């Protein structure tokens, strides 16, 4: 069983599992948003941790890095908040389907009360309890003070703070410029842009799922799968040399993993055409450049415009124009372009991950001469 987890928690497999799980969560959201499921989820998560801690290797790894403590909280809280939001939203959806107002809009919930003491007093409780919790945490898990820094003896693995480990995990697949600068920048820009892109007036002041399906799905996918899951991987499953280590696997520094990654240009010129790499950079990287352009320019067009007129299923897939009517019309060109750009940039992560796993792809465009590698 442990061996099973040691193998299948590797993101090569587990990322797909998590994506599938996410798909089922959305598909069977009515089932997920029940109290029974919620209780089961919490119990299941706690039991999972208890079982894991019974393993000496897992608990040894845990004690070695104090970062793992917030990860445990994170997982529990994530499970709880996600379930809670869905539960509330689905509940309201059900009410609205029956013609009732959302819970938040019922007369008793619209009644106004004094901020003091109702709000301020309880906030004080929260502050005190939070402090008590932090004291307890600090006493139980002493600050992991180490030796004075030794430049000739860097820690292995060298890990960022736990909340940045998702970004660090992206470094496995991307050039540092992308993973460290461009994509995090886009996350910030994207978050800022959300209110301007979002033209859906529904869902103000109450929980709902159905009325904001697209927004919730996109956001939750990014938040749960692309951000938090990668943090968990970066924290728990990455050991020395940033190699993958299963939860019950000893962190042996000498673990060797064969990684022979190739670039698109090498695939094209050497493997396919059987000639040496052209000396002209643009010619050499032509395939990657064209693919990138197609992804960023042609693909959005394909989504909005009906480009072909094939018949049957084939036509349904390749004719294009899926989003045309619904989104382009509702958002307008400017908003649509920004949205689709952000979504496409987000999708580069899973795409690059799968390309790495499936065909050992290193870079789509590889121009170290200009430090331009994507």
């Amino acid at each position: 069983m442990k061996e099973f987890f040691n193998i299948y928690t590797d993101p090569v497999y587990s990322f797909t599992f998590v994506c599938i799980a996410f798909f089922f969560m959305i598909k069977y959201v009515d089932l997920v948003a029940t109290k029974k499921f919620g209780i089961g989820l919490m119990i299941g998560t706690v039991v999972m941790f208890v079982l894991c801690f019974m393993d000496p290797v897992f608990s040894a790894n845990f004690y070695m890095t104090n970062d793992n403590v917030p990860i445990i909280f994170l997982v529990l809280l994530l499970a709880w908040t996600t379930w809670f939001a869905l539960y509330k939203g689905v509940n309201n959806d059900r009410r609205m389907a029956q013609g009732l107002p959302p819970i938040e809009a019922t007369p008793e919930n619209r009644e106004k009360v004094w901020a003091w003491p109702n709000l301020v007093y309880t906030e004080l409780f929260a502050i005190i309890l939070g402090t008590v919790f932090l004291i307890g945490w600090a006493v139980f898990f002493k600050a992991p003070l180490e030796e004075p820094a030794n430049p000739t003896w860097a820690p292995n693995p060298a890990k960022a703070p736990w909340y940045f480990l998702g970004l660090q995990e992206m470094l496995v697949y991307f050039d540092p410029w992308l993973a460290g600068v461009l994509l995090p920048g886009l996350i910030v820009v994207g978050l800022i842009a959300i209110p301007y892109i979002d033209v859906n007036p529904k869902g103000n002041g109450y929980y709902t799922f159905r009325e904001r399906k697209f927004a919730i799905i996109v956001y939750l996918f990014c938040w749960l799968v692309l951000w938090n899951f990668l943090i968990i991987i970066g924290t728990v499953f990455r050991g020395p040399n940033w190699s993958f280590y299963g939860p019950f696997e000893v962190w042996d520094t000498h673990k060797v993993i064969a990684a022979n990654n190739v670039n698109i240009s090498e695939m094209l010129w050497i493997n396919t055409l059987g000639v040496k790499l052209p000396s002209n950079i643009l010619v050499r990287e032509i395939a990657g450049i064209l693919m990138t352009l197609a992804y960023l320019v042609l693909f959005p067009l394909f989504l909005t415009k009906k480009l072909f007129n094939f018949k049957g299923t084939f036509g349904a897939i390749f004719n294009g124009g899926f989003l045309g009517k619904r989104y382009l019309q509702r958002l307008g060109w400017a908003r649509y372009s920004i949205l689709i750009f952000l979504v496409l940039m987000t999708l580069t992560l899973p795409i690059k991950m799968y390309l790495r796993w499936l065909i050992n792809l290193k870079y789509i465009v590889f121009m170290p001469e200009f430090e331009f590698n994507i």
Partner: protein
Amino acid sequence: MKREPGMHYNTKTLNKVFAFVAVLFLIATLWMFLDDYIRPWKAIQVKALEIEQKVLAERIAEENKNINQEDLAAIKAKIDSAEKEIEGRKKEIQSIEKELSLLDKKIYAQNMTNGIHGSKSGEYQFQYEHYHMHHDKRADKYKALMIEAKKRFAEGKDDLKTYQLEQSQLNKKLKKITSKKSEFEKELSKLTGAKDRLIFAKSKTEKTPIWFLRNSPFIDYLDPTLKIEQIVLDNITDDRYFVQTKKVDRCITCHKFIDKEGYEDQENPYKTHPRVNELAVGRNSAHPMKKFGCTGCHGGEGHRVFDFSAPAHMPQNAEQEKEWKKKYHWHEPHKIPEPMLPLQYTEASCVKCHSGEERIGLSQKLNKGRKLLENYGCYGCHKADGWEHLKKPGPSLTKINSKVSLEFMKNWIWSPHTFNPNSRMPAFFGQSNNSKPEFMIKNIAEVNAMAEYIHEKSKTSNAFAKYEQGNAEKGKELIQTVGCIACHQIEGIDEPYNKVNSLKGPYLTGTGSKVDANWLVSWLIKPSHYQKDTVMPSFRLSKSEANDIATYLLGLKNPKFEGLKFEPLNKTVRDEILVGDYFSQFDPEKSARAKLNSMSDRERTLELGRLSIGKYGCYSCHTIEGFAEDRPPIGPEWNGIGSKFVHQFGFGQQHHIPHRRDAWMYAHLENPRRWDIGVPKPFKDLNRMPNFYLNKEEIDAMTTALLGFNAQFIPMAGKKNHDAAGKLALEGMKVANKYNCYGCHKIDGMGGDIGAAYSDDLNAGPPWLVDQGHRVNPDWFQNFLQNISPIRPYLQVRMPSFDYLPGEVDKLITYFNASSGVSNYINKPKVVWEAGEKEAARKMWDGFACVSCHSIGFNNEEAQGPNLHKAASRLRPTWIKKWLKNPLAIQLYTPMPDFWEGGTKAAKEYDESLAGLLGDDPERQMNAMVKYVLSLGNVKTEMKKIESAAQAQKANTETAKKEDKTEDKK
């Protein structure tokens, strides 16, 4: 429950919740303080207090026993009676005291008045000078004032002196009355002072309420008694990577009594440091704690005290590790580049400061380890700073053909220990990583080729002497007594000569099956004929003596080994190695084959031999034709190995070996090939470090020495710095070590291995060299070392004649002179007699019966002391006096009597007939004796007299014999 308008919660409930969380918060805060307050070292300090109390109580009890109760009672009675006497003069005392208190008041008041007059006179003087300078009229007024003030100031001072005189007189009076009592009180304190001090010390260990207050939480920041104690070192630093900071050692926080005697029997951490007053920590030791701290020697993180594991304590062995884990929850230190050295290896740290010293006086284990590294020739393959001067450890093979046969060579290379279990030539073959049949075949081919190569390249050396059958018994006797055993061990020699455990030279058992007879005789007579740079000396053996020894040695055979026939060279395997492992290294196999085909059969063998010698590094230890002298040795350098990162050591599949530096070294010396076990490696990549078959003690000592090759930085001021003479002495020490002077002579407490054979009568063995620089005249020494002529002909053991390299003799002499702190040059002593001195000396010479032992040159009796006719040229006069004064203080075992009992008693105490000589002044008597001894060498008449007397006697006896014979014939 009814809700108030505008309220979601009930206020009372909120208040209750608030009360609850507030209490929770209080508890959490207290808990935090408590957690901060409770530290493991505090418990230790409290226990230390109890132990100290107990020890002090014991000492007080002991001190009580030492105090004679009768004496105590007598003194107390005396004090009582003195007090009564004082009581009788109470009135007198009271009146004096009254006067004294009055005087006190007067003196105080006078001091105040004087102050006023003094300052006023200063002020007026300034005013006067000021106005006078500016030609102001007011100058006159201030002049008068100044003179008046000065006058009054002088008067006041005089009054003060009068009062002080009165005061001292009264005090004297008072003291006289109480003098008896204070005298007795002094006596009392002499008797009980030690005890009183102990009682005072013990009172400091009581846990009084004040003690609790000072150490209670919150308040303990003021002036706690339980606190972290630390030593900050000025000259030794901690390396914090970008900066060297003063070393801070807080070990004494728990090791409370480490520098105090009397806690030797306590358990750790309450123990006293071993050799506390000699080696380290003690105030008068070589390394006082305040100057050297703890972690400078022991390693570890001295500033960390928060729990047992924090300072990186390291267990000595698996058992201790288990015990510590149970007792202290010990865990392996994380990310500490140099944790504490396990206790048994602590001496490794000596080298950090004592670099360049070949032997370090107080480091017994380190010295042993370094000697072993030297004797096993480890430095041949592994370079190290400070070891460059040593010659190649193995014998030169450039003329080997005249010594051993080709067949012997092959068998020997294959397995030296089969021939000689004590061989220092290590085993390269038949090891745990190359014993597979496919490897063995290749190894056999290599050994064949190497032997062929060495044989081919060997020059012939003509043995200049011819072996003749001698007397083996006599040979054995010579080996035992002449001094061979100081370097060589031989199975079968007699007690006590087999007790000497020296490894400088090879183990000689089996020599008969090894060497050529003529070679052996020549070698014994003149070793340098065969090998120019050998350290084997000549013992000035006569031809017959050499033949006797050779006969004995040749009789020591190893028939089993002699019968061995080495497997012949497999040519296919040879070619396969040449092509696969060497020729195709940089060329494709086809070209490699072509290269092979262009070579003749013999060429191929020799080429494999040459390459294999390079591969196994034979040239690192032996001089071999075709290998340049400066070719770098085969092994990795030792420098810094004691600080090498643990993860840079390859542990292979040896998972049971802890990942620690010392454990790796230990395991490596135990079986150097173990790292290959279970690792799939091709033949050419197999580990080549040979096996020396060391025993546990040897490995332990060698590990200590290896850990000494440490890269830690110690500032110059913190190191042992030698002055110019000291540095020269270290150079000389290297020479002394090279020629194994230490094998025979115990030099200032070091060495003297051969002494084991003379434990019954050390005087029959080679003399200890104590303060040798002071003893001998450098000019004489210079000559003696190069032209040995015996000083003590009565000794059977001989001072050998070495072939010193240029400059080595000077270094040796400088070594002795520098260690004694004497100059290299002395003036020729001149004897100037004072009146009556010569006669007195002559009388003492006879009275002490000097010639009864120092008979050489005086009569024909067997001598028991050195030849005194050489004293004038050999000894320094100051040393002769030192020797006469107290011979036993210099030479523990000397039979020389202590005539003046350490210079305290005159000669008459030894022999009454010598009374009245030179005023019975031991100093003058010794001076006279020194002069007498110095003048002996100049006076040949004594000798001549004796010689002529002896000749006359001889002639007499001969004529008598002749007469007898003629009478017989008749």
